[in-house]
């Protein structure tokens, strides 16, 4: 038995107890999209916790190699569900990332995005990416992903207006989630203050699942996702479609929103054929946690696995409710269609809702 000297780390120290609670049972292997794809223990959730522990104790020194492993996570939240000790694995990974960034191992692409947010308030580094302000009664937080997809945003706003909701739209800055998740904690602390000034509301409707989670968890704003609001007011329609639904991780595991999109589709006359892994147990699209910027091949492999599950349902349309999922899954579907000749169309739920409203049954 050897007594080791405790090393002080800036961020991980606070998670020492959590890491001691991890008994390394590997239950987090069950559906971790990274280890399922890569098949190396180091790359899975348990591996990242062990690496974090090594950084904490000083048995491991920060390195580019360790950074590559710790940043190889989609933040799909499945490990949080599977961990029987309910350890906050993602917080440990997030803080290990902060240690690594602090030690100079941030990736260029992540750094670029963070600098963009600091300079312009959004991930694109483009001051022109703003949305037309409008007066209203319900504060709307659009978020970077939807600011970069103005047609989708317009569609959602029109849907809300058709349902009698008047969204209040004004200039906004990124919620700060990329700073937090990519390990730029000091930048986030400054940004958080700025965010409060720019978004001084105590309630919000949001479009992006990740922003919704982060407004709730990071800013303590009880934000509602737009689908929760839409469900309350949506009229019935009969689109006579058959689709499968992909639950975004931040939706089903983060916000525990599982029934709402299904009830919306049901109201619109859309049948859902569920995939093998669905709802709380849904598989990741491969697009989260910053992996899309640093490990596109892995992200794509994970997305293709999901598309294959969708193809197994026999339907020709996959519907989802997250712009990142839509992007990664569309790319994977296209590649599978080209290489294997099996095709499935990937659509965001707002398209279906918009279509439904056009065909809505008049009361």
């Amino acid at each position, binding site marked *: *038995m*050897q*007594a*080791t*000297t*405790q090393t002080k780390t800036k961020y991980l120290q606070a998670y*020492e*107890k959590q890491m*001691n*609670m*991890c*008994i*390394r*049972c*590997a*239950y987090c*292997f*069950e559906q971790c999209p990274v280890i399922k794809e890569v*098949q*190396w*223990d*180091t790359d899975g959730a348990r*591996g990242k916790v*062990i*690496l974090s522990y*090594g950084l904490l*104790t000083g*048995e*491991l020194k920060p*390195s580019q*190699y*360790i950074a590559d*492993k710790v940043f190889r996570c989609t933040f799909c939240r499945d490990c949080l569900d599977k*961990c*029987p*000790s*309910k*350890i906050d694995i993602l917080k440990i990974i997030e803080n290990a990332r902060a240690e690594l960034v602090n030690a100079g191992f941030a990736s260029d692409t992540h750094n670029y995005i963070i600098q963009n947010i600091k300079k312009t308030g959004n991930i694109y580094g483009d001051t022109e990416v703003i949305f037309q302000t409008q007066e209203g009664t319900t504060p709307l937080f659009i978020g970077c992903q939807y600011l970069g997809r103005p047609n989708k945003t317009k569609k959602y706003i029109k849907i809300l207006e058709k349902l009698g909701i008047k969204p209040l739209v004004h200039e906004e800055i990124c919620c700060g989630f990329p700073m937090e998740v990519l390990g730029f904690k000091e930048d986030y602390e400054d940004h958080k203050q700025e965010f409060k000034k720019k978004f001084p509301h105590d309630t919000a409707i949001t479009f992006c699942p990740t922003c919704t989670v982060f407004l709730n968890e990071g800013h303590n704003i009880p934000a509602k996702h737009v689908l929760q609001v839409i469900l309350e007011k949506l009229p019935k329609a009969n689109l006579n479609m058959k689709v499968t639904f992909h639950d975004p991780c931040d939706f089903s595991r983060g916000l525990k929103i599982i029934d709402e999109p299904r009830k919306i589709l049901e109201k619109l006359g859309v049948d859902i054929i569920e995939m093998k892994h669905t709802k709380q147990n849904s598989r990741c699209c491969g697009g989260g946690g910053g992996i899309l910027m640093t490990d596109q091949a892995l992200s794509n492999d994970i997305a293709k696995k999901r598309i294959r599950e969708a193809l197994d349902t026999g339907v020709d349309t996959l519907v989802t409710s997250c712009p990142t999922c839509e992007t990664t899954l569309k790319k994977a579907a296209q590649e599978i269609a080209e290489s294997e000749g099996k095709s499935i169309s990937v659509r965001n739920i707002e398209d279906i809702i918009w279509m439904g409203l056009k065909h809505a049954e008049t009361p």
Partner: protein
Amino acid sequence: MNLDHQKLREIVGEENIRDNIADLYVYGSDASVHSKLPDIVIRPGSIVEVQKIMKYANENKIPVVPRGAGSGMSGQTVPLSGGIVLDMKQMNNIIEIRPEDVLCKVEPGVINDELNQVLKPYGFFFPPTPSSGKICTIGGMIGTNASGNRSVKYGATRDAILGMKVVLANGDLVTLGSNTKVDSSGYQLAKLMVGSEGTLGIVVEATLQISPIPKIRAMGVANFNTLEDAGNMISQTIAQGITPSMLELMDNIAITAVNNAQGLNLPNVAAIVIFECNGMIKETVEYEIHQIKEICKNNNGAGVKITDDEQEMTILYSGRKKLFPSLSKYGEGLYTTALADDMAVPMSKIADTVKKIHTIAKKHDVVMSAYGHCGAGLIHTKILMDTTKQTQWQGAKKAVKEIYDYVHSIGGTTSGEHGIGFSKGPAFKREKQDSLEMMRAIKKALDPNNILNPQKLMDSPNDWLTATPLRYQITQ
């Protein structure tokens, strides 16, 4: 260690070799308390690759430790002598399913639950059901002779092994066992490999006996205010000739832990017993489950509930399913350590053993739970303690020794299903002192250079506490 990395790269390819300190650090531990770095981690993808690796390792006297999910609790996959860790997870093909012969053939990296998902459409399942079934590999189950909650009816992995292909220490490939349920043809070497913890050969294919999925299932639960009542209920159930498919006990510490970790609302009693019966005939299952219900009542069981509703059965069993890792939530500053974790005792001694465990734990200022597949005589325990304190480790060491001395004194055995590794080495060597030389002779015959998972089982160090650096920070 003088390893020819280039030669190994040529065997399995660059993408299947890792030797960065970060990988070695991760592969240096499992769910036990120990840690020791390997020199290299290799991921073979075929039998031929395993043969080439073993031939090279044998010629150069390099230790080789096979590893599945790395979820073992006794340090089986901790490479005490360094060398090569063979990560077998990539060899995960289901080779064939033969329902007509009631068997299947798989590679060692197949995950237990994934095999069962594939078997399900055929109407079959692989009976050993460890709590870690969703992540543990068949190879790991063979290594430790894993069993799980259905062992009371179906036995352990050894009972479900018909044959296997094994790569020996020198790289030779041998086929052991047969494709038949009975086999009287000489030494049962396939069975010998089960529970050998990678010390005799590398299992590269296994022939498994499968069972038809029972059509009818019912489950029940009963609460007991004394451990004696719970123990008597278990003992009487088995003695009356009832064959439950599950008979599980949870003590009060285990109950508190799952309530804290899983947010369950289990009653605060001395023990809960969960039981299940299954079969093909409804009347038989109903008869047996009601018989157990009566035995519960006769032994002062309270809150007795039986159900055949799938959802209710899942809820009933959810606490037990995730109990081991939930123990970390028992109390602030107490962390779960996998020590003295799976002794088996004669059925009539279950209650006495559980009480003895609690007494010894109190004496040495640690917390110990007792739970497990008591219908098979198996008791799981874990030591909960402040792992940052030297004194706690010393107390744990004394508790472990005293508990095993008691278990041996009543005719029990050191490990029921997790295996020995080296955490349980000292107790195992005391228990099996008469046969250690026989085991060493077998080991020497099959592995003369002692490269296969050395320093485990009969060759494990005499003091588990100082055998490796512990994977915890000890600061006080």
